[in-house]
């Protein structure tokens, strides 16, 4: 009977060995590892352009307004505008004597400096939500739209020495609300689109005196489900306000923000 065990072992071992051999006689290759993308390290313009493109279409939130569709809230950057070419071309001509990349950088961090006629001043400064390297990546990407990329690693300021993320950068990841109080949230987050005490951007309705115009219940709904509470005259902007504030705040924070806003009379 032991011979049966031996035979079974032999058959099993031979089968496994056969499969292992078959897999070993065919050509052997490991998968490729693409280089890691680290914004802090010296990067080639191509890599910057790639990251900038991702930010432009994704986390940067630019395409919400700079859309490709006609009638978008802000100029279409990848297409020709009034015969001046896409942004990578027309950036040279916008301000006399200003290099393309400097113009683009300034437009990102101080949007109201260089307004295009016919468009409302609604753009929030990019350095509120993005780090310096990220902004420069977007500049590189914008340059690549029709023009030559002149951004180099030398333009990008070094990251803070201790490696701690900048507060603005933390906010950009969407996870930075945990430690913030109601006043802080209103003064940092809300003012990106609402005017408050003269600060902020005139996109959505101003927050001054909002407590007199809206009940606490309406305010809560306006934060959790923005399209459900629309102020007269702002119908066109429905859908612009992020819907994720409810997820980014704890219930306690939400209530304190609602309370804070209700007290603004």
């Amino acid at each position, binding site marked *: 009977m032991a011979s049966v065990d031996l035979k079974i072992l032999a058959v099993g071992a031979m089968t496994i060995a056969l499969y292992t051999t078959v897999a070993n006689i065919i*050509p052997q*290759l490991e*998968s*490729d590892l693409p280089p890691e993308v680290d914004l802090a390290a010296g990067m080639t*313009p191509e890599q910057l352009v*790639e990251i900038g*493109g991702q930010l432009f279409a994704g986390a940067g939130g630019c395409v919400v307004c700079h859309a490709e569709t006609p009638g978008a809230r802000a100029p279409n950057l990848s297409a020709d505008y009034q015969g001046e070419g896409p942004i990578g071309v027309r950036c040279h001509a916008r301000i006399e004597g200003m290099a393309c990349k400097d113009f683009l950088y300034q437009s990102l961090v101080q949007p109201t400096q260089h307004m295009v006629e016919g468009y409302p001043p609604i753009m929030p400064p990019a350095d509120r939500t993005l780090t310096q390297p990220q902004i420069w990546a977007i500049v590189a990407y914008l340059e*690549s739209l029709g023009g*030559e990329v002149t951004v180099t690693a030398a333009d990008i300021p070094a990251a803070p020495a201790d490696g701690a993320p900048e507060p603005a950068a933390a906010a950009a990841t969407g996870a930075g609300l945990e430690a913030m109080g109601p006043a802080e949230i209103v003064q940092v987050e809300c003012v990106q689109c609402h005017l408050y005490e003269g600060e902020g951007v005139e996109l959505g309705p101003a927050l001054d005196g909002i407590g007199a115009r809206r009940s606490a219940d309406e305010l809560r709904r306006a934060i959790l489900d923005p399209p459900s509470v629309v102020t007269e005259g702002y119908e066109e902007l429905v859908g612009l306000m992020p819907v994720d504030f409810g997820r980014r705040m704890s219930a306690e924070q939400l209530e304190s923000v609602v309370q804070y806003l209700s007290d603004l009379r």
Partner: protein
Amino acid sequence: MRERLRHPFWQGALVLGVAYALFRWGIPYLPPLLGISSAPVPRSVMLQYMLTVLVGILVWVSDNEERWRRFKEPMRALLVQPERRVARGAMLVVLPLLVAFVTYDSLRPKISAPAGLRSVHPANPTSITVRGEAMILEGLENPLRTAGREEEAVELGFDLYYQNCMPCHGDYLDGQGHFAHGFNPLPLPLRGGGTIAQLTESYVFWRIAKGGPGLPREGQPWNSAMPAWDEILTPEEIWAVTLFLYEQAGLSPRTWEEH
């Protein structure tokens, strides 16, 4: 002789021999008689086919008690019968010699390079940068197909093909240009269902733009002599060439999956 033909052992041996002849000589020389081009079967595939046939024969002789018993007869006879002494002795000498020769033959140094795989259609990168402009290959279509001046573009591609590609890829797009035989591997034929018909147009664009040097690791060892054309042609010109290729070969590119 007749009796032998009815014996499973000799039937099996015969099938094995016929299969070998078919693979060794039948495949390269029979299709050309019908006007279909063919070539010798590579050793690796030959081995694979013969092993499969051998396993098939073994299954056949042993899937029936009677046949299995009869199949074993000659081997048994050779090993035990006293009057087969000479044959037995010869086998005991020849078999080890054969094994020794096969081992020797596989180990001795040869002039030819070892067999290797070149994956002809390696996976494409997500995006490439052509003249400083990033292009995302996924979902990318030939812009010239929608620009409305397709005929003009085909005309341009025609000129470019004959200026640049024809010496290797041939007048007939069959990979048989007059320089072709100087290369190993040969330039790919662009006709037929095997190459560009299998690929999306952006893939073909990538292969033209980046050439042999742009092949990823799984395409190695690349001995491809294909130049990276993005240094010579503009993206528009490359698109014109791909347009011409599909037009001329009467093929259409692989379409993207619907989402």
